[in-house]
């Protein structure tokens, strides 16, 4: 396969995943079928199966896609020469930014990936399918502790605090409960997180 054709295939794959994400968010994961996705993209059902052999495979590819997408954004932050406090703020900002721009991504992560573990048993064991994202969070924590900014503790106690808080806010936003816009919470929330994690 030529590079050009490979790139095209990748683009098409991403297009399918993006459309699937949107449909999952609006119609629900179980109610959305491959023919629904095909129809919405004006593709044949058979052609979709050329890209994803089953809906389960599509589901797993999507979570990896989100993980890589978020992971890359976090990697950029981790590689910056800035304080842990500033990193904390930027991570929160990026997460909320994605929640605003691509709410279907965060929605998928929280409502589908975390709630339908049976779909992700085979091939998405543990945190494999969100590895890129989790790795960056690990690096952010590890470096924060190493430079003395963050308090050493169990990884999951810190991870839970961080992700639970952000997830909770996005959930409240999704339920239209938040009085202010999500990005207006970035400063307070990042200060809260940093204060909770710092030495």
């Amino acid at each position, binding site marked *: 396969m030529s590079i050009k054709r490979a790139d095209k295939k990748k683009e098409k794959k991403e297009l399918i995943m993006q459309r699937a994400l949107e449909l999952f968010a609006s119609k629900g994961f179980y109610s959305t079928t491959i023919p629904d996705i095909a129809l919405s993209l004006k593709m044949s059902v058979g052609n979709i199966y050329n890209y994803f052999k089953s809906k389960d495979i599509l589901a797993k590819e999507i979570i990896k896609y989100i993980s890589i997408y978020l992971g890359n954004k976090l*990697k950029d932050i981790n590689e910056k020469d800035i304080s842990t406090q500033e990193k904390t703020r930027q991570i929160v900002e990026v997460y909320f930014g994605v929640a605003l721009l691509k709410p279907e991504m965060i929605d998928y992560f929280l409502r589908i990936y975390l709630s339908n573990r049976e779909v992700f048993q085979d091939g998405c*064991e*543990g*945190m*494999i399918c969100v*590895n*890129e994202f*989790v*790795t*960056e969070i*690990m*690096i952010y*924590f*590890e*470096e*924060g*502790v*190493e430079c003395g900014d*963050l308090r*050493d*503790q*169990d*990884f*999951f106690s*810190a991870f839970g605090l961080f992700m639970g808080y952000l997830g909770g806010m996005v959930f409240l936003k999704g339920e239209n409960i938040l009085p202010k816009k999500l990005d207006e919470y970035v400063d307070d929330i990042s200060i809260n997180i940093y204060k909770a994690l710092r030495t």
Partner: protein
Amino acid sequence: MLSKKLKILWLTAITCNGNTHSFLNYPHLDIFMDTFEFIYHPSIDSAYTLNDIINKEIACDILIIEGSISTEYIKADAPIVDIINKYASKVQKIVTVGTCASFGGMFRESDYKDTTGLHFDKERPTSLFEHIKEKTISLSGCPVHPDIIANTLYSIEKKRAIELDSLLRPKEFFAYTVHNGCTRNEYFEYKIDNHQFGKKEGCMFYDHGCHAPYTHGSCNKILWNEVNSKTRAGLSCMGCTEPTFPKGDFFHTKKNMGIPQYLPFGVAKRTYLTLAGITKAFHIKRLEEDLFDD
């Protein structure tokens, strides 16, 4: 007739003599002594006394130094620095045996002023013996393995070029990590992190301070006393061949939010964590059970 044996002066400075005794475990001392002769050794008989060594002109081909060095340290009424300089100028090669002589080691913390290795204070190069640096080979380890001493001396005798790393250590022994060849490697590869002391199973890297993946050495390749190694026996590698030895807190892995601070050599944190994340997701029954379980 003059002996054709290569003449070695084994000089001890601030030391526990651990390298002396490690060397006595060399299994082929019989043929070794056919090729080499000690003009002085801390326990093997020699033709000369320490006073002879210090006060007379005695032919010498190789100077071995064991122990950390300080300008304050006096041996048999002579400053060790003077004895070293006296012989360093006439020998073909200088060999530092042990981490003390190479980098300062355990006795860098002794009360003598400015105690260091011959050319290094930990990793930092020192200048006192700069003029003899090109002759020096560092054999680190606390103690150094006897094969490493003997085979280095043989390569000097056979005039074969020895490739050295930046800390003057022979690459053939120190390009490896102590992790290479450890019988517990599978537990490391698959991130089975529930090691307990007193067990055949498990890897000490995760909780119990094992330095093997980031320590240069051949312990698990050439084995100690020809039979075993610390890590095979279930004891963490203490990183004793490295300039940073002794780091302290030997039985405990320094972790930041559960992530080991020191990672295998040359493996980027991101790479390590990605791989660890993947392998940890799986359960490998064989490695989670005791070896002898049915």
